[in-house]
């Protein structure tokens, strides 16, 4: 009986559901298009005319009008929107109001640092979340489970920047073990990663725990125990397979939280990265940079979600029709 499954799996894997993939791709593209429009509209409300800011205090109206014409902010909204889309289609995100660099260059400079931090925090969150979740499901209701639940309740309830400040106070200020500022080296990565990753363990651990508990209570596990199988093979062979697949869909939530957390953490640890770029652009009213970074992060997020969904379909046979 068991041999029958791998062959069907192989057949199905060889013929992925192209219709589903295309549909999902089309909807992702639509969502990205919607996000472009949404961000454009929100940022149009941003108070403070960038031309006035650039011209500085005491500039006369002619200078301001001149700068407005240069920036193109004096045109009607829909013309600006049209030209923005046209530029985007040519992968041109505009130039920074402040440094006059192309926005795309600034994003590419900062992107690696954010990916580095984000990927490491994600790894920390997933590693701890999944192992702790499995362990506390196995020891459901015992002291280990309760201790984990209480610690994680605190970790999820602490503001991430406060975790960061406590880590800085202990590891940088008191003991001088790790640097508190800057980016580039591995040692500078440890504290921000811990701070961003630790807070994200809670939600994931909960999902894994309740998933594993649900499967452990299913009749087939009782059957397996009745057959005389040991607990450990039951857990690894049968329970985890069933319990962990749904968790994959929750990765998108974790990634969303990390992409959100990056803004605060990069500011706190004075790191380079996209989050820092956003905060700086906000205080400078540098709209092209702001628009560019938010769009870039959203597109990155939507494409990650697209691949997560695809991998889910690929791994879980039940969703294939």
């Amino acid at each position, binding site marked *: 009986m068991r041999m029958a499954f791998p062959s069907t799996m192989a057949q199905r894997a060889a013929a992925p559901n192209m219709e589903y993939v295309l549909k999902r791709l089309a909807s992702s593209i639509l969502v990205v298009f919607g996000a472009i429009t949404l961000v454009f509209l929100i940022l149009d409300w941003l108070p403070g005319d960038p031309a006035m800011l650039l011209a500085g205090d005491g500039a006369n109206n002619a200078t301001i009008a001149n700068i407005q014409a240069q920036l193109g902010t004096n045109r009607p909204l829909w013309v600006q929107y049209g030209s923005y889309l046209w530029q985007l289609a040519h992968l041109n995100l505009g130039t920074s109001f402040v440094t006059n660099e192309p926005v795309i260059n600034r994003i590419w400079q900062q992107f690696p640092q954010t990916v580095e931090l984000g990927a490491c925090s994600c790894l920390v969150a997933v590693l701890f979340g999944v192992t702790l979740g499995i362990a506390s499901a196995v020891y459901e209701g015992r002291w280990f489970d309760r201790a984990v639940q209480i610690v994680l309740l605190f970790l999820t*309830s*602490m*503001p991430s920047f406060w975790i960061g400040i406590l880590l800085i106070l202990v590891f940088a*200020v008191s003991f001088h073990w790790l640097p508190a500022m800057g980016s580039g080296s591995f040692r500078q990565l440890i504290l921000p990663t811990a701070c961003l990753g630790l807070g994200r363990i809670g939600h994931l651990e909960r999902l894994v725990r309740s998933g594993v508990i649900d499967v452990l209570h299913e009749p087939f596990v009782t059957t397996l125990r009745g057959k005389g199988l040991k607990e450990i093979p039951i857990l690894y062979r049968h329970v985890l397979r069933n319990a962990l697949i749904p968790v994959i869909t929750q990765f998108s939530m974790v990634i969303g939280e990390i992409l959100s957390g990056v803004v605060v953490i990069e500011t706190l640890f004075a790191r380079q990265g996209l989050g820092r770029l956003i905060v700086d652009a906000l205080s400078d009213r540098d709209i092209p940079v702001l628009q560019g970074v938010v769009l870039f992060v959203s597109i990155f*997020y939507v494409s990650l979600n697209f691949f997560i969904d695809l991998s889910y379909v690929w791994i879980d046979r039940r969703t294939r029709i």
Partner: protein
Amino acid sequence: MSDQTIKNVYPDLVPVAPDKSVASSQPAWSLKDAWPWKIQLAIFLPCLVIATIFIFAAVPSLVAPYAPTDMDDNAILAAPSLHHLFGTDQFGSDILTLVIYGARQSVLLALGAILLGASSGTLVGLVTGYAGGKLDAAVMRVIEVWMSIPPMLLALIIAAALGGGFSSTIIAIASMIVPRFSRIVRAQVISIKARPFIVAAQALGASKTWILRRHVLPHAGSLLLVLSTLWVGEAILAGSALSFIGLGANPDHPDWGFILAQGRNYLTDAWWYATFPGLAITSLVVSVNLLGDTLRSKFDPQHKLR
């Protein structure tokens, strides 16, 4: 058709208190193997903390040891002592006093955001879930777009676009809550909609708003309560994060995130400056989350939320 007509003609069809019939079939607590005092503690302790913070928020002048404008020139950045339990800041102001006065901003921010976010999210979820069809499809697409921007980034640009400050922070945080809330409410409404008593009410000619108000909303009530409690914690954290970046409260009414951001500049000299405001945020959020968990294990034993 009015309530009374339906009650007279078909008394069985009008559930007087819909939730009781559901609840009575289940044990009052799903954690029945846990000791009752633990559950009592899990309700009592968070309520105590929340009540204390609410008192801070309501009447700070009665509780705080000093006035927020008091500055002690002899105790600039003084360590915690009997005179200043939480220490003092760079102007010699008492940090305990600042934290007590900051409670109002933080609490109002979270409550405002959750009220705005939960009510609009519920409205959207109720209407789309019940109406279905093209309206539902269109609104769900908008929500998908909305959620494609990571929540904090969206809140950040909305807060900035509205000019920063108190009310724009509330709107920004509500914008994180609305799409997630309405999705869950919509799913719940769709499952309620298929139940026989709704079909019966429809067959009797009851209007849509009447069904939504009398039948659907009460059945979604416990879910809304749990969901709101769980989101209060997120709202407090998001609000303090926005203040920390410098988009939330104004310096005249500093909230906890703002004090924390100030304290960050004195980490090497004054560990207490950033530590205690953070402790305040954490104790409030822990209490709210613990309460939310306890409520959830009562109303949602199968953990269908999130």
